[in-house]
């Protein structure tokens, strides 16, 4: 069968337009491709946005959770620090509140034969328990006796600060000072030895 169109004798319409060239079919094809691509990209973006929003909510939850954990940890750190500080205080107190008795004994033993103690006071500062206020009144012996007593105090690991010394009539010496414990390890041994004696 030939491809030639059949004859036609109807009244010819004047406004018949010829088909557009086949090459121009690219225009609607590209338009359709663009539409499909736009729809596909929009769908992709829509799902990605939904996904990112879900992830954002999830991460915000995680942030809140971590913030809560951080504050709890900080609270615990605070408690630990407080505990540590209190432990240090206890330690300092333990360090500072050494027994006064060896000091009193040391002072008493340092007295010579002719010297005698009239008054001895050992007062521990409440705020600084490692500091001991010493007040010593003795008669006879003078400066030599005082040096001997201070030497004995030094031997026990204390050093004297803010010393105040007055000499009265009849060989009376009034000595006041603040004793601070020197952390020297072997001094305790001496005390132990003294204790043993």
């Amino acid at each position, binding site marked *: 069968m030939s*491809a*030639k169109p*059949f004859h036609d*004798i109807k*009244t*010819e319409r004047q406004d018949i337009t010829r*088909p*557009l060239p086949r090459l121009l079919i690219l225009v*609607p094809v590209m*338009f359709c491709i663009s539409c499909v691509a736009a729809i596909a990209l929009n769908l992709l973006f829509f799902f990605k946005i939904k996904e990112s929003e879900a992830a954002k909510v999830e991460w915000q939850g995680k942030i809140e959770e971590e913030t809560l954990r951080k504050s709890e940890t900080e609270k615990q750190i605070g408690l630990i620090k407080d505990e540590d500080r209190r432990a240090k205080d206890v330690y300092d107190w333990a360090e500072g509140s050494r027994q006064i008795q060896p000091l009193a004994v040391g002072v008493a033993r340092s007295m010579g034969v002719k010297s005698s103690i009239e008054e001895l006071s050992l007062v521990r500062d409440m705020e600084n328990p490692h500091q001991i206020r010493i007040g010593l009144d003795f008669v006879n012996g003078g400066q030599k006796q005082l040096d001997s007593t201070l030497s004995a105090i030094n031997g026990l690991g204390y050093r004297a600060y803010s010393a105040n010394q007055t000499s009265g009539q009849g060989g009376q010496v009034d000595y006041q000072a603040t004793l601070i414990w020197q952390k020297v390890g072997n001094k305790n041994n001496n005390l132990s030895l003294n204790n043993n004696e």
Partner: protein
Amino acid sequence: MKLSDITNVLSFAAFRPDPDDSSSIWRKRFPNRQTLLLNFSKEEVSWRSVSKDGVLGEENSVVGPVKEVVQDMSDDWLDLTDGGWCAVSINHRFVISLETNLTRKNGASELIRTNPKAVLGSKSERGKRYALKHNAESNSSILLAVDEDYIKEIETLFKSSGLKVGRICCGIYGMLSESLDQITEAQKDYNENGSEPLGDIVLITCCEGSVCILKSDQEKWIELRSRNSLYAQKDSEPLRKIIAPIVEDLGSNAQIVLSADGAVEGINQMLRELAPNVRINDMSDSYGLWSLLKNK
């Protein structure tokens, strides 16, 4: 630019022929659309629908004048179409004649539709529509002439019924034209293969009671007889009377080429009786009117 122009481009409609564009074949004008093919004679209207896939539906027919049948059946026909488009084949009030020495300048076949006088000269008559088929091997041509009033009457009738006519043609002329094309192709093959020439050919075309007989000597058309509404399905005697004088004296090297619609029962038998020694080549099934209307 109108909005419809843009939508036509985007829907690819602008790249397809217009439904009214007679320079395009039918199936290209209506891809994926249902259409209707109608065939009229003086006393009968037959039709077949074409589905979206291009498959022909069952043939139906109604006896009666065209005007009454169209008015009665238009609603049913509209249901068989997408948009009411139909092709109309008329087999009534036409004349097919053999002419010689008609102009063959380029575009004459198209020009004859708008300005028949430029092609036919003094042979042109007012109030007629023409179609032309040239013989490539001689100066003869086959000329179809149809009353313009009849065509306009059909157009008005269909328009008033809501149907749109995409094509009006003369079915028997179309079958004749297609058969001639096939014969020309066959002759070319014979010539190329060095076989003996086809010899005398009598081409008999029958459609809805009309008949057209073309006798050719080798490649020259020498005689043409055409009659409107000559015979009926049950009465083929008039057909015998017109065919007999032409085929009776045919030699043994001649052949009869037959292209007939289903309405003519026993025509093959009739031809064998009239010309027992002549080869009959029946191409009715392959190039019937409906397949021509659908595919061309």
